[in-house]
């Protein structure tokens, strides 16, 4: 996509709220849009919003949103200048980026080689270690034998985590508490990695027991310019699924977040990154941070950064993909106040967050000052069963974190969603933000499990009392 100075038409290779997000950014920039959709999404908001729409396959993602030939065909047929992959689906698939390039279709994201390299945990670790990003004590190279691996683990000290080199999103990893358990866990993780990713390589690193998930947003124009837009704290997770994100990460000294930002920029430049990307770090209670991975795409939680920096990240993606040199400089990024995002999922917190889809008889999001909604849902919308359960993202901004929490609570209380069988995470999210440890920012990634246990204890005692 380099060398062009403007995009005239973009295909959105995604669905749900992010497809609407991209379509809105395109419209604001005067770029025509092509939606692609599966049979189950034929009545979706983006299909009517976009200038054109192509029916690319049936409900299963493999035959629609993951169907590279169908999407490439739609892109060529409609004559788009570029494809926006959104998040999930094909957004970090180097093959897709390569097919686009081979067919003269712009890809809104980094080059396929960069996606491939950063998507390989081992290769990414090696690269980032070379430019001085801090790593958890462990192996940079994949391990060659169980003997070598256990020696390393004993040296690091327990607990350690064994991770698949090709893994991600919490799959293909195993925590080991003591030396005696190591050999079994090692063998098991390798088999699992082979099964899941077709790649048995694993490595070992120190496991942090009370860590926060803090990530840094970067923008890079591929011409050697890269900036960071501050960090997001995504510690409120359930089984690696983020439920709530915020910026700034609370209680961190600016000196620390500046160092994290600088590290991310260094990594982005070293990788030859282009577009919007995220550097994920683990942050220990001692405020030491460690590189985890790079997400080569726009993220679900990107609006948190947009609210504190006033930068439209999707518009920036489009500008960079059009080959425009980045006009934003690091000193232009002024971060103000605090922003929080809550993910409103169609899930039942009382039934282990099982998907609880249905037809939305009522869907009325909150509004008013310093509130933002990103959603593809609307009254009468039938939540499809083939995809993830994200229904809406609710964001608030306020000068300080305590004010933002109060604003979020009032906004969550306003949100009306109902329909037969439909349950949402709204009530659970209100419990999260009113949790005293969360309010004091003393939480870590274990907060959600703790709150679920509290709910169950409460329920059990209610049952016992009746």
């Amino acid at each position, binding site marked *: 996509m380099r060398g062009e100075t403007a995009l005239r038409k973009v295909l959105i290779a995604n669905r749900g709220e992010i497809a609407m997000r991209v379509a809105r950014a395109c419209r604001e920039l005067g770029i025509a849009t092509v939606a692609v959709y599966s*049979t189950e999404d034929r009545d979706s908001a983006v299909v009517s919003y976009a200038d054109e729409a*192509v029916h690319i396959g049936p409900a299963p993602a493999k035959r*629609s949103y993951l169907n590279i030939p169908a999407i490439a*065909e739609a892109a060529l047929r409609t004559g788009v200048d570029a494809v926006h992959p959104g998040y999930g689906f094909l957004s970090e698939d180097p093959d897709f980026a390569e097919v686009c390039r081979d067919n003269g279709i712009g890809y809104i994201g980094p080059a396929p080689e960069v996606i491939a390299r950063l998507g390989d945990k081992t290769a990414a670790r090696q690269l980032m270690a070379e430019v001085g990003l801090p790593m958890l004590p462990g192996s940079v190279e994949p391990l060659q034998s169980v003997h070598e691996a256990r020696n390393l683990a004993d040296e690091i000290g327990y607990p350690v985590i064994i991770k698949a080199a090709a893994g991600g*999103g919490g799959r293909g990893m195993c925590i080991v508490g003591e030396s005696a358990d190591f050999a079994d866990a090692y063998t098991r993780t390798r088999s699992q990695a082979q099964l*899941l990713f*077709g790649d048995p390589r694993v490595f070992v690193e120190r496991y942090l027991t009370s860590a926060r998930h803090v990530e840094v947003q970067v923008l890079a124009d591929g011409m050697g310019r890269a900036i960071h837009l501050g960090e997001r704290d995504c510690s409120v997770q359930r089984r690696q699924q983020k439920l709530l994100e915020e910026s700034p990460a609370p209680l961190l000294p600016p000196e620390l977040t500046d160092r994290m930002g600088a590290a991310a920029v260094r990594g982005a430049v070293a990788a030859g990154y282009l577009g919007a990307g995220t550097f994920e770090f683990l942050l220990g209670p001692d405020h030491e941070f460690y590189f985890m991975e790079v997400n080569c795409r726009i993220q*679900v939680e990107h609006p948190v950064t947009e609210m504190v920096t006033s930068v439209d990240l999707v518009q920036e993606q489009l500008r960079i993909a059009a080959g425009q040199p980045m006009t934003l400089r690091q000193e232009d990024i002024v971060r103000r106040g605090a922003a929080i995002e809550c993910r409103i999922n169609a899930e039942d917190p009382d039934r282990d967050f099982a*998907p609880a889809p249905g037809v939305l008889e009522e869907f009325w999001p909150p509004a008013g000052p310093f509130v933002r909604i990103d959603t593809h849902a609307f009254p009468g919308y039938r939540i499809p069963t083939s995809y993830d*359960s994200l229904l809406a993202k609710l964001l608030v901004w306020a000068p300080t974190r305590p004010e933002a929490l109060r604003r979020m609570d009032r906004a969550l209380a306003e949100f009306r969603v109902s329909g037969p069988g439909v349950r949402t995470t709204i009530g659970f999210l209100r419990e999260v933000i009113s949790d005293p440890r969360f309010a004091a920012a003393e939480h870590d990634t274990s907060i959600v499990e703790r709150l679920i246990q509290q709910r169950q204890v409460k329920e059990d005692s209610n049952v016992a009392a009746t």
Partner: protein
Amino acid sequence: MTAHDGEALEQVRHHAQRLLANIPSQPSALRVRDGDVALDLEWQTDGNGARPIESPAPGTSDPPPDSGTTAYLTAPTVGVFYRAPEPGATPFVAENDVVSVGQQVGIVEVMKLMVPVEAEAAGRIVKVLKDDGEQVEYGDQLFALEGADAE
């Protein structure tokens, strides 16, 4: 990598088994992934290779059949529809031909992949709804069929 992780490995396996059970010809490759849930199957697309038979989509944007006995053969993918194996050759089928389940009735070319269109129902072709070389989307009606299912 956290946005679309809702479906667990068990589900993927389950789907793989169901899918395999519905596929008449042995694929040449099977790959299960878990990063954003993938399940790749490959066949030798030599023109005679089978393609997976999906149960009909629960609904398409096309109108429903206007008579109880009319069925439609639809496009298995977005692409360019061809009625014949190569330019100038005799079309696979013509109006009034009787087709049986699994019989090839056309080709949809998507990114240089030739995807055979096979009859998902048996019957007599009463109308050819798309021209040779016409662009189609997934689910577009290609042929109208009148029921010969009883035979």
